[in-house]
C-alpha cells in the first residue's frame, strides 16, 4: 500500500516540475540573504539642532530605533489606527506638520515620516521651510513682519519628536512599492516596516562652524566684495543653496577671474577685498566674526587693519583703514601710507604723526571708508522673453557712498549694453535691505553698501533654504551677467575719481564656461568636487558638495586650518591664485612659504603647490558670543558693542552614533507565537511518543 502511494507521488512530482522555472535570482550565501532581507535606504535625515532657547529639527524620541509599518496617507484628515511610518509627497509635508502641532492624538500615532523625492521642482508652488523673514532679529530696521520670503513656512524651526527622512530618487520606488503592498494586506500578516535610526543625544558638543575666506588685491583703500557660501535646509545633507548663496559665490569668483586679466589694477586708487562668508544662514556668523576680528586686529586680518579713531570734532568715531604694502612690513614696525581714497591732500599730514590723524579724519567726517558690495542671489535675473538680465541694488547706510556705487553700477551696465544687463533700484516700499551679510556691516554705522539681488521687493527664489534649491533653480547666463556687471563696476569704483580707462573697462569680459564649470563643481554630484578646476587646487574629501556649515572641529587657529571644508579650501586657493601678483611656477611648496607675503597655492595636490605673492587668509566663523578657553567653548555675556550678539541663538548640534534608515518585512506577532507553540508541541509529542514506544516494545519483547 505504501509503495503505491510512493509511486503516485513520484508521478505527481514529475508532472508538477515539468513547468519551466523562471530565471532565478539566486542567493548564494547567508550574507546575500541578509542583504536581501534588510534593505538600507539611501535617504537624507532632518537632524536636531540646539540653541540657547531650545531645539529644532527631528530625532528619535528616545534612545532606541523606531520600527513602524510604512503607510501612505491619502487624505490629510485621515486617522491612523496604529503608530506608523508615513510616506507622503513633499507638498503635503507642511500640512502634516501643522496638523501634528495641533492634534496631539494624531501626533502620537506618527512613528516617523518618509518624504518622497521630487527630481524636478517644476511645481508652481514653492517650498521653503525657512521663515517669511529669515533671521529677522538681525535686521537693522524695525519692520520684522515684511515678507521677503513669500513661500516660507517656518517648519524648519520647529521641533518634531519623530524622525523625518527625505528619500533619494533611487529609494523612492522601493518604498512606494512597500507602502502599496502594506495597503493590500489588511490583516497585518506580513508587514513591511521601516526602521529609523536617528537617535540624537542632547548635549552641547561644540559651537557652530569653520571658516571664511578673504583675499585681496595688492593693498589700496577698501572696497569689499562679499558673498556667502553656505545654506540651510530641512534635510541637512541636501543644503545646496544654488540660488540663495552659491549663485553669488560663483558670480564673485568669476568676477575675480575676469579682473585678474586686467593689467592696470595696480594703478587703481582703491583696494579690492573679496570676502566669502560662511555660517551666514545660522546667524550671520561669518560676517559678524570677521568684523569682530577686524576690531581686535588679529593675525587673521593681517594686512587689513582697522583702528577706531577718536577725533577732535565731536564724538563720532570712524573706521579708518590702514594697510601694509606688501614687502614693507616688518614685525612690529608698520609703515603707514596714505589711505588715498578721496583725499590725496591729507597724505602729508598722516605721514607726520599717526595720532594727528584726528584732524585729517575730521575732514573726512562725513565719509565712510569701507564700501561693501554684496552679491546675493543672482541666478534668476534672466528674463526669458528678452534674454536680458535685470538686477536690483538694495542700498543701505551712508547715501553718498551708495550713490557712488550706484553710479558705478549704472556705468558698468551701460558699458555692457543696457539691452543685456540692466540695473534698477530696489522697491522704495521695502523696509530696508534684504536678509544679507550687509546687515552685520551696517551695525558698524560707518560702513555703507549695496546688495545686488535679482529681485526688487521679495525673493524670486521659491525654494529658499530647501533641498530643492539646486541647479535647475538657477541660470548660468544670469550669473555670468551679474559677474560681468560686478567686475566692471568694481573697476569703475576702484578708479575712484581718476578717469576710467575705457579700453581696459571694455576688455573686462567674463568667462561663461567658467560659470558653467563652477555650477557643475559646486552644485551637483557629477562631476562634483572631483572636477578639474577643483582638483587643480585641492584634494576633496567628498565628491558631492554640501553647503551646510557644520560645527567647529578644532581650535580657531586659522592660517592653515586642517579642518576647513572642501569648498572653503577651494575658494581660498582659487582666490589666492587669481589675486596673486607674481605667478611663480618654479617655487613648489607643500605648506608654508618662505616669505611672509607668500602663500602656497595647491598645497594638497601632488607636487603642484606653488608659492605666490598674495594676501589670502582664512577667518574663523563662529558666534561672537562664544570663546574658546581651556579647550572648551564658553558662552560669553551680551556685550553692548555687539548688538547682533544679543539676538544670536548660538546654534550647535547634538551627538549621534549612526544615522540610518532600513526597511524589512516582519510577520505579525500572533503568528510568531503560534509557530513557537507548534514547535514546542511537536517536541513534547515526539518525547511522549518515544517513551510510549519504548515502553510498549520493552513489554512486548519481554513477554515473548
Amino acid at each position, binding site marked *: 500500500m505504501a509503495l503505491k502511494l510512493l509511486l503516485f507521488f513520484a508521478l505527481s512530482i514529475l508532472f508538477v516540475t515539468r513547468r519551466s522555472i523562471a530565471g532565478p535570482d539566486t542567493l548564494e550565501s547567508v550574507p546575500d540573504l541578509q542583504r536581501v532581507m534588510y534593505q538600507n535606504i539611501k535617504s537624507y535625515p532632518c537632524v536636531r539642532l540646539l540653541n540657547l532657547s531650545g531645539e529644532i529639527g527631528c530625532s528619535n524620541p528616545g534612545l532606541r530605533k523606531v520600527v513602524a509599518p510604512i503607510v501612505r496617507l491619502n487624505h490629510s484628515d485621515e486617522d491612523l489606527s496604529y503608530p506608523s511610518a508615513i510616506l507622503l509627497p513633499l507638498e503635503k509635508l507642511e500640512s502634516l506638520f501643522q496638523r501634528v502641532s495641533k492634534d496631539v492624538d494624531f501626533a502620537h500615532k506618527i512613528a516617523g515620516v518618509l518624504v518622497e523625492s521630487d527630481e524636478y521642482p517644476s511645481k508652481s508652488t514653492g517650498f521653503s521651510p525657512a521663515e517669511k523673514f529669515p533671521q529677522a532679529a538681525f535686521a537693522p530696521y524695525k519692520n520684522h513682519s515684511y515678507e521677503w520670503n513669500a513661500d516660507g513656512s517656518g517648519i524648519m524651526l520647529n521641533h518634531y519628536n519623530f524622525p523625518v527622512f527625505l528619500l533619494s530618487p533611487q529609494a523612492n520606488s522601493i518604498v512606494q512599492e512597500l507602502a502599496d503592498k502594506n495597503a493590500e494586506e489588511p490583516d497585518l500578516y506580513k508587514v513591511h516596516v521601516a526602521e529609523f535610526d536617528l537617535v540624537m543625544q542632547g548635549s552641547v558638543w561644540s559651537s557652530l562652524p569653520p571658516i571664511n575666506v578673504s583675499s585681496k588685491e595688492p593693498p589700496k583703500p577698501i572696497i569689499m566684495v562679499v558673498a556667502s557660501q553656505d545654506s540651510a535646509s530641512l534635510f541637512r545633507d541636501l543644503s545646496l543653496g544654488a540660488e540663495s548663496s552659491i549663485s553669488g559665490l560663483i558670480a564673485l569668483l568669476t568676477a575675480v577671474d575676469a579682473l585678474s586679466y586686467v593689467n592696470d589694477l595696480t594703478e587703481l586708487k582703491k583696494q579690492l577685498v573679496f570676502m566669502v562668508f560662511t555660517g551666514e544662514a545660522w546667524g550671520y556668523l561669518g560676517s559678524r566674526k570677521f568684523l569682530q576680528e577686524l576690531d581686535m586686529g588679529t593675525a587673521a586680518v593681517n594686512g587689513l587693519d582697522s583702528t577706531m579713531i577718536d577725533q577732535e570734532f565731536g564724538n563720532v568715531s570712524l573706521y579708518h583703514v590702514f594697510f601694509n604694502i606688501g614687502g614693507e612690513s616688518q614685525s612690529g614696525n608698520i609703515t603707514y601710507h596714505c589711505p588715498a581714497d578721496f583725499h590725496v591732500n591729507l597724505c602729508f599730514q598722516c605721514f607726520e604723526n599717526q595720532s594727528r590723524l584726528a584732524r585729517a579724519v575730521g575732514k573726512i567726517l562725513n565719509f565712510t571708508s569701507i564700501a561693501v558690495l554684496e552679491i546675493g542671489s543672482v541666478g534668476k535675473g534672466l528674463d526669458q522673453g528678452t534674454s536680458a538680465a535685470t538686477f536690483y541694488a538694495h542700498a543701505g547706510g551712508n547715501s553718498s557712498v551708495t550713490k557712488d556705487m550706484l553710479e558705478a553700477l549704472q556705468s558698468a551696465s551701460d558699458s555692457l549694453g543696457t539691452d543685456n544687463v540692466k540695473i534698477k533700484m530696489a522697491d522704495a516700499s521695502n523696509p530696508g535691505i534684504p536678509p544679507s551679510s550687509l546687515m552685520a556691516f551696517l551695525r558698524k554705522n560707518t560702513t555703507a553698501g549695496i546688495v545686488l539681488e535679482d529681485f526688487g521687493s521679495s525673493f524670486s527664489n521659491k525654494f529658499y533654504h530647501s533641498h530643492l534649491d539646486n541647479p535647475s533653480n538657477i541660470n548660468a547666463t544670469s550669473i555670468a551677467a551679474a559677474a560681468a556687471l560686478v567686475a566692471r563696476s568694481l573697476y569703475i569704483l576702484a578708479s575712484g575719481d581718476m578717469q576710467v580707462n575705457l579700453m581696459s573697462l571694455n576688455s573686462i569680459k567674463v568667462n561663461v564656461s567658467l560659470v558653467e564649470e563652477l555650477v557643475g563643481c559646486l552644485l551637483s554630484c557629477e562631476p562634483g568636487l572631483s572636477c578639474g578646476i577643483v582638483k587643480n587646487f585641492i584634494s576633496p574629501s567628498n565628491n558631492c558638495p554640501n553647503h551646510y556649515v557644520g560645527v567647529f572641529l578644532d581650535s580657531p587657529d586659522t592660517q592653515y586650518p586642517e579642518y576647513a571644508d572642501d569648498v572653503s579650501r577651494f575658494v581660498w586657493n582659487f582666490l589666492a591664485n587669481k589675486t596673486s601678483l607674481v605667478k611663480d611656477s618654479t617655487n613648489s611648496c607643500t605648506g608654508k612659504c618662505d616669505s611672509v607675503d607668500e602663500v602656497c597655492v595647491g598645497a594638497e595636490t601632488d607636487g603642484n603647490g606653488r608659492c605666490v605673492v598674495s594676501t589670502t587668509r582664512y577667518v574663523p566663523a563662529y558666534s561672537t558670543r562664544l570663546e574658546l578657553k581651556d579647550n572648551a567653548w564658553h558662552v560669553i555675556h551680551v556685550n553692548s558693542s555687539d548688538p547682533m550678539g544679543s539676538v544670536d541663538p548660538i546654534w550647535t548640534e547634538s551627538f549621534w552614533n549612526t544615522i540610518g534608515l532600513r526597511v524589512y518585512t516582519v510577520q505579525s506577532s500572533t503568528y510568531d507565537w503560534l509557530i513557537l507553540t507548534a514547535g514546542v508541541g511537536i517536541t513534547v509529542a515526539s*518525547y511522549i511518543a518515544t517513551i510510549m514506544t519504548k515502553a510498549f516494545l520493552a513489554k512486548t519483547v519481554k513477554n515473548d
Partner: protein
Amino acid sequence: MGDAVFSVFGSSHVLPNKKSLCNTVLWGRFTRQLNKIVPTHRMEGRRDGLLFWLISLIVLSGAWRVVLPLNSAAWWPYVILIFTSVGFQEATRLMFWKLYKRLEVILDAFAEEKFRSRLSWTDKMQIALAGGLGHGVAHAVFFCVSLLTPSFGPATYFVDRCSRIPFFLVSAIISLVFVIIHTFSMIIAFNGYADGRKVDQVVVPVVHILAAVMTLMNLAPGGCSIGVPLLCCVGAITMYYCWQMVWRKLTEHGRRQRNASEIHIS
C-alpha cells in the same frame, strides 16, 4: 527567488523567524536520545554515524562546488544534481553497512564476554536508529545552522515563489521531515541488508530520491504550499513503513520464540 544551493541535497531550508522550529526539532530528537539509557555501542554508533555522514556531505559538496552555482532557468540540472547526491549518499550508506558488519563481529565478541549474550535484534535496530539519527542530524546541521543567525534578527523573509509561508519556517519543516526520513530509512535499510530483503533495500533509495525531487516543487511559483505538505506525507509514510517492518519482525520473532520454547518444552 530560487534556492539553488540550498536545494543541492534536495531540500529548501527554512527556519521560522525568531522562534526556531529547527531548534525545537533537534532538541526533541536529542531529548529522546538522552532519555534512553544508551549502552556504549549504541552511543558510539550514533556518534560515528553523525561524523560519517557529515564527512560524506562535505565531500559531496566539495565535488559539486566546481559546477555550482547553477544559474539556470531549467529544472533538469537540479535533477541531475539531486540524483548524483542521493546516489552518493546511498553508496555511503552501503559502505556504512559494510563497516558496521565488521564492527558487529567485534561488538558481538565484546557482548559475549561482558554480558554473556550476543546482540539481540532490538539492539541492532537501535544501532540502526542511532545511525539514522546521526544522518538526519548531520543533514539538519548542514542546512539549518547557517540560517540561525538571520533567523534571530528582527526581520523575516518571504521568497517570491512562496509568498505566504516565511522562508525560515519552510526550511525548518523540511529539515524536520528529512530527519524523520533519514532516521527511519536507516532502520529499514539495515534490516533489508541483514535479512536480504530486496524490497526494503530498494525502498530506501527510492524514498530518498522521491523526497529530494519533491523539494524541486518549491522552485515553481506557489509550489511550496503543495510541496511541503506532500513531503510531510512522505515522512509519515516512511515512519509507517518502518513501524510495519518492526511489527512484522516482532511478531515473527515472537512466533519463533514460542515455537522454540514449545519444542523445548515438548
